[in-house]
C-alpha cells in the first residue's frame, strides 16, 4: 500500500474515520429532507389553516368567508357575508376534556349576544360515549343560547333557558364543553366591549 500522508492516516483510523459512511449518509439525508420540506411545507401549512377556515362560514348564518382578525389579544375569525360585511364572529377555543384536550370553534352573532353555532375540531374522548359531543344533533342545542349567563348541563330531557341536555354516560365531556364555551365567550365579550369602548 502506498505510503499515506500521516494526517490522512491519523484521521482514517481515528474515531471519525471509521464512521465516514455515517457522516456522508447524514449529510445526504439532511439535504434531501430539507428539499422535501421546502417542497411540501407550504402545502401542509395551507392544509392546517384552511381546515378551520372551511368550517368558519358554516357556524354563522349567512356567512360566506372568514377572515382572521385580532380583537384585544385574542386571534379570532370574523365571518363575512356576500358583500363583505361582518355577519358574526368565530372564536377558536381549547380546554381540558375528559381524556385529553378538546379544540372547538364557537360561532357568535355580530354583537356577541348569543351563540350562532358550535363545532368540535379535534378531541380524544372515549369513542362511542364522549365522542358523541361531535354529533350535530347535540351541538345544535347551543344555537340561540344567550351568552350573558353561563350554560350548565342538566340531566332532565327538557332543558330550561340556559341549560344543555348532557349526553348520557358522558357527563364530564358535556360539562367540559360548556365550561370551555362559558370561559372563552366571557373573555371574548370583555375584549369586544373594551375594543368597542375605544375604537
Amino acid at each position: 500500500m502506498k505510503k499515506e500522508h500521516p494526517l490522512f492516516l491519523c484521521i482514517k483510523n481515528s474515531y471519525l474515520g471509521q464512521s465516514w459512511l455515517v457522516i456522508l449518509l447524514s449529510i445526504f439525508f439532511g439535504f434531501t429532507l430539507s428539499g422535501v420540506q421546502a417542497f411540501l411545507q407550504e402545502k401542509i401549512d395551507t392544509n392546517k389553516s384552511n381546515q378551520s377556515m372551511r368550517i368558519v362560514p358554516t357556524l354563522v348564518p349567512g356567512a360566506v368567508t372568514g377572515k382572521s382578525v385580532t380583537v384585544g389579544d385574542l386571534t379570532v375569525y370574523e365571518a363575512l357575508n356576500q358583500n363583505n360585511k361582518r355577519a358574526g364572529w368565530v372564536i377558536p377555543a381549547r380546554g381540558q376534556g375528559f381524556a385529553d384536550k378538546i379544540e372547538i370553534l364557537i360561532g357568535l352573532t355580530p354583537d356577541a349576544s348569543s351563540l350562532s353555532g358550535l363545532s368540535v375540531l379535534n378531541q380524544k374522548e372515549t369513542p362511542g360515549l364522549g365522542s358523541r359531543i361531535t354529533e350535530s344533533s347535540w351541538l345544535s342545542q347551543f344555537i340561540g343560547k344567550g351568552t350573558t349567563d353561563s350554560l350548565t348541563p342538566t340531566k332532565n330531557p327538557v332543558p330550561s333557558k340556559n341549560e344543555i341536555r348532557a349526553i348520557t354516560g358522558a357527563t364530564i365531556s358535556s360539562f367540559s364543553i360548556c365550561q370551555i364555551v362559558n370561559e372563552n365567550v366571557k373573555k371574548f365579550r370583555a375584549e369586544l366591549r373594551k375594543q368597542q369602548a375605544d375604537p
Partner: protein
Amino acid sequence: MSKENPTALERFIWGIIPENPIFRQVLGTCPALAVSTDIKAALTMTCATAFVLICANTIISLIRHLLKPHLRIVVFVLTIASFVTIVDYLLAAFYYSMSLQLGPYVPLIIVNCIIICRCEVCASKQSVGVAISDAIGQSLGFGLALVSMASFREILGSGTWCGFRIMPDSWPNWVLMLLPPGAFFVFGFLIGAVNWFTSLKKNKSS
C-alpha cells in the same frame, strides 16, 4: 430459516403467511395494535410501512459492502428515519385528515421492529432483487395482519367496514373493541388462531 438462503420468490411467499411478521414472528406489534381501529387507517399505515420498507431495503442492500459491523445499526436507523420523515410529510400534505388521525404513529414506523429486522437479516446480506422481494412479501404480510385485525375491530366496534354499514342498526356498538383492551384481546386471540391453524397443518402434513 430452515434452509440456508432461500431464493427471492421463497422469501416473498414466506413473508406473507408462513413467516408473517406480526402473527408468526410477533414483530412490529406497536402500530398493529394502535392503528387497527378502522380499515382506512390500517391501509394507510400499511402503504406507508411498505414504502419505507422497500426503499430502506433497496438502499441498504446497495451499500451493504460498505457497512462496518459496529456502526451497522446507526446506518439502518438513519436511512429508515429519513424515509419515514418523507412519508410523514407526504401524508400531511396530501391526506391531512388521516395524518391527524394517525398522529404520532407515523413517525413510530422508524422503530417498527419489522423494518430494522428485515434490514439486518435480509438486506444487509442479500442482493437488491432478493431484498426488494423480501420487503414486498413482509409488507404484504404486515398489511394482511393489520387489515384482518382492523376488520374485526371495526365491524364489532362501530358496525361498519371501511365506512360501509355492515351490521344491522340494532347492533349495539361494542365500544370496548375500539378501546385499548379490545385491541389486546383481538390480537391475542388472532395469534392463538394462527398458531392453532399452523399446528393443525403441521400435524396433518407430518
